[in-house]
């Protein structure tokens, strides 16, 4: 029982990160019908922004919640700017062409970011500063052997707070209303006097900031960051968005948590039914195929869903 609970905690912990990234996929898709394949790399950029910020501000030597907070917010801002720049200079110029052009542009941007980073700083993994003292602190015991570490608690709390904040922005603020209007119909929104370009930029900015938060948070649990870290994680977050129903915000969160839990249970229990832990990544993509075959609109998606 304690092992099961532990695996659930582990799974939801990774799932929360997937969810944060999946939100960016789903918001951009909701507005532009674009799968932003560079999104996983924005997650990586966020992690590195946090890393360099911590080093340049000397925060690595002063581990505390405050340092983590500064790095978290700083990297979210940097990633938001990166996201807005990508949209402005790569996607907006080709937006008037077919959707395929934008999709190929997204793949190009993704490869460009990855290879720029590899060329500039090398592919060797770097160690993200340990702000929470995870390396020397024992976890909090729940019952039996089940335990939860400080990093895991922080990941849960911050992710939930960010998701609630996003929900508030989308449903309770004026820009949120504008975002929903743009996702409903871009041209009508423009006719109503909404500055659609600004709203699209904002959507990229918010999505990128959430991905960066995922990058910094996950680095508290797993300090190993490298320029290619966004590829697989980004793809799984994309699967999570599709699983939940792409374009649907609660769906992205649900999808993220489910994918995280599914892959952890494959690792933890797969060997009982003859699935080696190496099949973990295959499972995420098998889920993608199953969803597309059985319920293409995803768990919470529907064809007339209002999308943001």
């Amino acid at each position, binding site marked *: 029982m304690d*092992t099961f609970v532990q695996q659930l905690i*582990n799974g939801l*912990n990774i799932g929360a990160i997937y969810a944060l990234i999946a939100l960016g996929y789903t918001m951009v898709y909701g507005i532009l019908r674009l799968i932003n394949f560079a999104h996983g790399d924005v997650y990586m950029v966020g992690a590195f922004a946090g890393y360099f910020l911590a080093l340049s501000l000397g925060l690595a030597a002063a581990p505390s919640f405050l340092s983590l907070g500064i790095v978290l917010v700083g990297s979210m801002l940097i990633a938001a700017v990166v996201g807005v720049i990508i949209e402005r200079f790569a996607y907006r110029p080709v937006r008037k062409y077919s959707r395929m052009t934008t999709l190929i542009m997204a793949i190009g941007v993704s490869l460009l970011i990855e290879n720029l980073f590899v060329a500039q700083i090398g592919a060797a993994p770097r*160690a993200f500063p340990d702000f929470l003292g*995870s*390396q*020397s602190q024992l976890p909090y015991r729940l019952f039996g052997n089940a335990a939860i570490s400080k990093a895991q608690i922080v990941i849960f709390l911050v992710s939930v707070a960010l998701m609630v904040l996003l929900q508030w922005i989308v449903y309770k603020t004026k820009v949120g209303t504008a975002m929903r209007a743009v996702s409903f119909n871009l041209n009508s929104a423009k006719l109503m006097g909404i500055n659609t370009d600004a709203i699209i930029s904002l959507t990229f900015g918010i999505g990128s900031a959430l991905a960066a938060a995922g990058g910094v948070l996950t680095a508290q*649990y*797993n300090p190993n960051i490298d320029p290619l870290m966004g590829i697989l994680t980004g793809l799984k977050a994309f699967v999570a968005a599709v699983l939940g129903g792409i374009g649907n915000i609660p769906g992205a969160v649900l999808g993220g948590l489910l994918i995280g839990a599914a892959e952890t249970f494959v690792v933890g229990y797969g060997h009982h039914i003859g699935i080696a832990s190496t099949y973990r990544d295959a499972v995420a993509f098998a889920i993608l195929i199953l969803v597309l075959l059985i319920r293409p609109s995803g768990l919470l998606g529907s064809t007339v869903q209002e999308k943001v």
Partner: protein
Amino acid sequence: MKRTLLALLLITTLFVSFACERRGGVTNGGGSGPILVGYYGDLSGRTSSFGQSTKNGVEMAADEINKAGGIDGRQIQIITEDDQGEPNKAATVVTKLINQDRVAALLGEVASSNSLAAAPKAQEAKVPMISPSSTNPAVTQVGDYIFRVCFIDPFQGEVMAKFSANNLKAKRAAILYDFNSDYSRGLYQFFKRSFESQGGQIVSEQSYTQGDRDFSGQLTAIRAANPDVIYVPGYYGEIGVISNQTKQLGIKAPLLGGDGWDAPQLWDLGGASLNGNYISNHYSVDDPSPAIQKFVADYKARYNILPDALAALGYDSMKVLADAIKRAGTTENVKLRDAIAQTKNFPGVTGQITIDKDRNAVKPAVVLKLQNSKFVYETTISPEGSSEPVATNN
């Protein structure tokens, strides 16, 4: 116009290839030109610490030889290629070193998977290759031109199994290995065989792949099996994280590893969580023997960092090659191959090096304990039936 351009291009290509041929020709024909030695390794990929340390060791050895007048008056020139830690790139750069640069011999790689990809190219071209530190047995089985100056995994796995059973009194071991790495899979099998033959029990076997970022699923399953020790024969990039997450799950059993842990970056990634773990390795910087202390001091003066085992093995591989060229009196491939094969009791930094009939070096291993960002010497374990003394001063 287009045709003229094409013709020009063709002519240039021809010139360039002639130039390369000529350069190569001089080297292989002997004489007084420099002896070209190709070094290939991971200088920018996920295991770049390995490639960099080895390169440092190789270059330091070559400089020492050159300063002392070279080999029979000929200087050694190292040509370095980066394979980014990828097997297919290792094969490509080795082909380039052989065909374009016409090197007399090759030094590399560290990771067994990369050596295994490159070795067939060297064997095909009949260019002697010495791997400084690939420990998977299959590497030298590629052919009679492939050698190594380190011990092999059956021994390294056995060392840790013996150490856990005898020194740590472990009865139950769990294993977490890298599924895609020849090195890690080899160590996993040899550890398991040896630990079971010591009367121990393997209670959980889990795997991951290089680049994985979350190991909590595997570690939770391992925790449930309640092992005394956890054998994790991987590379440093993942080890730091695994150690960190082991701590966060409240697991107290020590992690045991091999020479793949040995990199300065390990401490950045794992920090204090690494304390109390053990690895098997090729040598210890704490070894009081004067030869080792001189090497450590020279290396530190030159690179401003302590030499890890890969630097020491890189250094030894260059010295063994130079010794063989000197004995052969030529860089001609058949004679050079035979001279390397006859290496006997060569006094290396990592121990007395004797190349056995399988072209492997036979020598003892050390066990090091991880404590406060340092590898602290624990004990030395010699190969079965070896006449070498169990001591720290070899």
